[in-house]
């Protein structure tokens, strides 16, 4: 899925996977069970297989990506975050990853609930609609923002549920989901801890990466 395709703000990384994926990978403990939702061509799964020896699975909406993943020996199914997560049992995975996809789901709240249900931890990255350039575009020009991390015109975007980092944190609070760790990436791909200054992160982060845990029963 990975619906935010272009990542020019992050393009200057020299590693073999995107900076945000690297950040995600660093969180994951070796030999854990991982589900990557919207795994695209399987770059993160392959990286995790190699570096962390995980038991990795993927879900991908696009059949081309699925076929490429399976042909590369990755365990990936064709599926949809909105409809297919309900099938999985509780605690099926140590980590469930949803990278740059939540904003493209029909029911983000339900998807989020499923993520923390089927995973002991969920790792979610989202584009930040509260970034200053977005605010600038709307406030000054009165136009919807189009930039590196939000490359689509309003009439063709798959991103139908935008939020700012603050909005996302508010939703987690509302669902009693614990934010274990959170980072924001600035447009140069540099990570900053959100909790050191949430308002600053919401202004300067082009995307946020959150490690979440479901509320204790």
């Amino acid at each position, binding site marked *: 899925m990975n619906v935010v395709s272009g990542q020019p703000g992050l393009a200057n990384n020299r590693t073999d996977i995107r900076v945000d994926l690297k950040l995600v990978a660093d969180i994951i403990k070796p030999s854990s069970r991982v589900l990557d939702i919207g795994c695209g061509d399987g770059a993160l799964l392959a990286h995790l297989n190699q570096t962390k020896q995980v038991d990795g699975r993927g879900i991908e909406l696009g059949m081309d990506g699925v076929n490429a993943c399976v*042909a590369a*020996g990755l365990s*990936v199914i*064709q599926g949809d975050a909105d409809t297919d997560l309900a099938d999985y049992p509780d605690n099926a995975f140590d980590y469930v990853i949803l990278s740059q996809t939540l904003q493209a789901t029909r029911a983000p709240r339900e998807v989020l609930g499923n993520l923390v249900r089927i995973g002991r931890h969920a790792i979610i990255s989202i584009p930040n609609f509260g970034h200053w350039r977005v605010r600038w575009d709307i406030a000054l020009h009165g136009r919807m923002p189009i930039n590196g991390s939000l490359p689509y015109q309003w009439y063709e975007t798959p991103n139908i549920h935008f939020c700012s980092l603050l909005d996302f944190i508010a939703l987690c609070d509302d669902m009693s989901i614990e934010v274990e760790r959170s980072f924001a990436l600035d447009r140069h791909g540099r990570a900053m801890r959100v909790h050191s200054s949430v308002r600053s992160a919401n202004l300067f982060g082009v995307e946020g990466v959150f490690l979440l845990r479901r509320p204790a029963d």
Partner: protein
Amino acid sequence: MDSLKNRSPANGDSPNLSGNQVVLGCESPLVLDCGTELSEFTVAYQTYGTLNALRNNAVLVCHALTGDQFVAEAHPITGRPGWWGNIVGSGKAIDTERYFVICTNILGGCMGTTGPQDINPRTAKPWALSFPVITIRDMVRAQAMLLDHLEIERLFAVIGGSLGGMQALEWASSYPERVFAAVPIATAAHHSAQNIAFHELGRQAIMADPDWHGGNYQLEGLTPKRGLAVARMAGHITYHSETALTRKFGRRLQDRDNLTYGFDADFQVESYLRHQGSTFVERFDANAYLYITRAMDYFDLAARHGGVLAEAFRDTPVRFCVISFSSDWLYSTVESRTVVRALNAAAANVSFVEITSDQGHDSFLLDEPEFFRVLSGFLNGAAERLAMASGAMR
């Protein structure tokens, strides 16, 4: 392992075949789902490649309704190339340089494994309809007994399309500890009303043929060729997509410029179906067709597990690769997705791919490079995992 006796299924007898056969069930009989015990039954099988020292590179290929054990070699009766010669072989997706491939003729079949055309030792007459009704699970039990005989504890993979895919699912469900990876292709976890309906049509065609003689055609020296041919024709319609039939035949006429205002095969599609029917009866036994289609109709993996398919795969260690074809309406992608959802609910390790093809159910037997690529990639990935878990595959 004697070569088979000089008979032919068209005469209602086992054919004269090269290949392996073994008599099983001598010490402990095969207990069938229907309650009957089969002792001293024969399994005919072919192998390709070499079993490695660790005995962990065996791949069981399961054939479909009218297939047989001659996967990757010329068919002994028709002379046509093996039915999966494009997939099984040196350097192919199921690489015989790497894997030890086994294919058995299924229980109830007519190519050397015990079936209704064989002689019932108790009566010294062909079994015919006194042969017990068998199930997919019975076929798999017989295969498991063959593996015991071959001293193969665990399969690297079990792979099959259509009925073969049902066997792959049954294997994974009944013997999860004996299967490392399973690839059910163009298949379903149960037979739908539509599936059963088409099979019933074929069976009724056979039984309506006066030469069928209540199933005892062998004693009469006859074969119900017309009925079996019609059954085959109906089958062939279900194996094609409408697009494929239109592309192949359209409304084109067969060797004529005008309609004849009669009931000859005016249209190419009629001629094709008649040809398929008439060649099929040369290599297949009518009663075997009844028994095998019945086994497929009875297949319902969830039913044994309180109607919950996921329970058939609870805590399964098997790696699955479910493959469907976009234009297959006989065992559609929806059916494969049902299997995948159940496997997800069991938190199983599963890959699922729908291959885009307009060739209908038959796609799994045809030249579909994307299918080959996915199958080969899945097996490579699984082999890597097995090597990590239990030592190299050599």
